[in-house]
């Protein structure tokens, strides 16, 4: 009797397990249950631990004075500002080095990527060495090495390397002239924006004319003239409404102009050249991924080399290049957290470093750091998804 019941039970369980639907429900219930159990376990432990040392979870400390200095700030900040403001300063510094790094890395990466494809043996080899040397050495080492070179081998302020008495490079950083804009400068800005708007309109019109009549308008030159020449002319006509403040050696340091700190310089250069090696490989493989038949077909249609590149190769290569490129941008942004190794005050060094040590609020500080980085990466992924959808190959 009992044996029969148990065998019935077993068969019921095995029947459930062998049924596809009920099994998938069971697996999912187990997964979710295990996850909740894990979180519950961690939560209880955290609660007990915090209780034992008399801590609570609170973000009150954000409004207390930070009482530490930050040597590079984009917004006003003194040591009496709050931890929250310190965090914003760090966030802006992270964004600054990330944006500057992305720009330089993209330019360098595209140049090197194209050089990797030239038939010129020497240039090809040099580009190859550049890529391999950079890719195979840890980024942290590059940051430290460049920082070591900037601080250790560049001359002291007194013997700063000057470029035409306008730019000065010393171990305290790079000094460059800063500009003060007069109200009339607004005209130049407006001219620039007008140039861009005109270029977009002109490009559309040129495309329409080409599709209707086959006539090709000189788009590139018109666009260059509208965006560059026109604002420059306006700038000259309005009488150069800018005042330059040129750095001058006064006492032990330069006065006037604006300065780029060696920490920023080292981090920016290291991030850019390191990432540029990866971008170069992405660009190279993207261009190689365009089937050779495409170039040949363009040639057969009678397109010139630059039109082939512009209309056939680049649009198809971009489809391959952009997704990994954005993930490199994201990597660069995350890698900027290595700033802490040379004392550049980014988000990890401010709220996740000094603020954390001063207030002892590890949970809150690290949570803020994680949330900020996650929001970066989520917004970039969202852009990626949008872009992928837009350029997706339309297949039959």
């Amino acid at each position, binding site marked *: 009797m009992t044996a029969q019941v148990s065998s019935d039970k077993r068969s019921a369980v095995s029947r459930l397990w062998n049924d596809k639907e009920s099994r998938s429900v069971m697996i999912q219930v187990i997964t979710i249950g295990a996850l909740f159990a894990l979180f519950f376990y961690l939560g209880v432990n955290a609660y007990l631990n915090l209780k034992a040392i008399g801590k609570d979870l609170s973000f009150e400390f954000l409004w207390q004075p930070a009482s530490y200095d930050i040597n590079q700030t984009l917004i006003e900040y003194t040591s009496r500002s709050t931890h929250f403001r310190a965090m914003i300063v760090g966030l802006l510094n992270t964004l600054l080095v990330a944006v500057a790094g992305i720009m330089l890395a993209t330019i360098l990466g595209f140049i090197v990527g194209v050089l990797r494809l030239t038939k010129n043996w020497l240039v090809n080899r040099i580009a190859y060495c550049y890529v391999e*040397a950079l890719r195979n050495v840890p980024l942290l080492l590059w940051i430290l*090495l460049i920082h070591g070179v900037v601080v250790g081998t560049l001359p002291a302020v007194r013997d700063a390397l000057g470029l035409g008495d306008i730019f000065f490079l010393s171990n305290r950083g790079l000094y460059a002239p800063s500009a003060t804009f007069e109200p009339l400068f607004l005209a130049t800005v407006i001219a620039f924006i007008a140039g861009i708007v005109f270029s977009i309109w002109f490009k559309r019109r040129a495309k329409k004319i080409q599709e209707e009549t086959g006539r090709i308008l000189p788009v590139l030159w018109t666009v260059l003239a509208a965006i560059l020449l026109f604002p420059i002319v306006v700038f000259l006509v309005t009488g150069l409404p800018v005042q330059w403040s040129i750095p001058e050696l006064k006492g032990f340091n330069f006065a006037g102009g604006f300065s780029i700190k060696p920490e920023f310089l080292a981090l920016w250069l290291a991030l850019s050249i390191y990432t540029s090696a990866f971008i170069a490989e992405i660009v190279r493989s993207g261009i190689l991924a365009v089937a050779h038949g495409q170039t040949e077909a363009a040639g057969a249609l009678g397109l010139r080399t630059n039109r082939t590149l512009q209309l056939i190769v680049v649009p198809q290569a971009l489809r391959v290049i952009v997704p990994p490129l954005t993930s490199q941008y994201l990597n660069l942004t995350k890698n900027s957290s290595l700033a802490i190794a040379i004392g550049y005050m980014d988000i990890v060094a401010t709220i996740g470093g000094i603020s954390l040590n001063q207030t002892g609020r590890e949970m809150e500080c690290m949570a803020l750091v*994680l949330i900020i980085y996650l929001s970066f*990466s989520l917004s970039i992924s969202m852009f990626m998804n949008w872009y992928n959808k837009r350029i997706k190959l339309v297949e039959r």
Partner: protein
Amino acid sequence: MTDISQKTYAPGQHPDLPPPALTTGVLGWMRANLFSSVGNGILTLAALAVLAVVLPKVLDFVFFDAVFFAEDRQECQALGSGACWAVIIERFQVSIYAFYPDELRWRPNLAFVLLFVALGPLLFDKFPARKQMLFFSMIYPFLAAWLVVGGLGLEPVETNKFGGVMLTIIIGVTGIVGSLPLGIVLALGRVSNLPAVKIVCVGFIEFIRGVPLIALLFIASTMLNYFLPPGTEFDLLLRVLIMVTLFSSAYIAEVVRGGLQAVAKGQYEAADSMGLTYWQSMRLIVLPQALKISIPGIVNTFIGLYKDTTLVIIIGLLDVLGVMKSALADPKWNGLAVEVYIYTAVFFFISCFAMSRYSLYLEKKLHTGHKR
């Protein structure tokens, strides 16, 4: 020399003329590869000019003006104006073993040699007695851990004495060994059609990929104790190993997912129609193909992981970079940062370049399609 153009030949009997001088030999090669057009010529000359300026300076610094044997930095500066490699020579032993006890160094050495014995059958399919050796590869991680940490008959060594190249390799190899299976499971979870499993895996992967490794290491070093039962003491190295493994498993998962999606749908359907269970079809049909496709990506992730091991110096572990940096604090060698960094860079370059060459070799071997 006879002038062949003066002679007359019967049709078809004219001896072959030599190829034009500019298309063969060194000149021909240079013309084809360096000066094929005006633009290329300018590019070549510019590159040569840059090399002529940079190379002599670099060579002088690294070799000709460098000092290899000296007692301290002052002596180095007196002897030559180039690099002071004496610091590397003096610290070489320390850079490899850090504070590992002298008399026990045979143990990490043995583990290191056995690493290649264990890797051989995994990496090269023509390895002798591969099947039997794969068993050794499977028990190797435990054997190596036993050799390095000690216990069970060997004298135990505290993990805070680990450092240098040894620590770099320990973290790298553990991360690699641990993250591959975990990454495969995560990838399978991500493409699974069970929504709950999928959400958990996507959440984990996206979280890890969205934050920098530094932040995770900070969490491991400062906060992890909060989440463990009160009073638990947890070895710092172990915490770092776990974090590094979790970190790189998320990246491996994305690479493997790419491979899984590249396997033709017919393969999944064929496996189903054969009546294979999920795990059978994965193990026998899908994963072998998916992993083959994703091998280059996996090796790249491993290289990334290996390079990322340097970040542990920020939370106070002394890997090869950390140990060498501590030499800079020594007043004897104060200020020789560039030399120390170059040495470490060369170490990483050699190991990472070897890995990337291996990945190229695999790519070539597994490439079964057409080549242009």
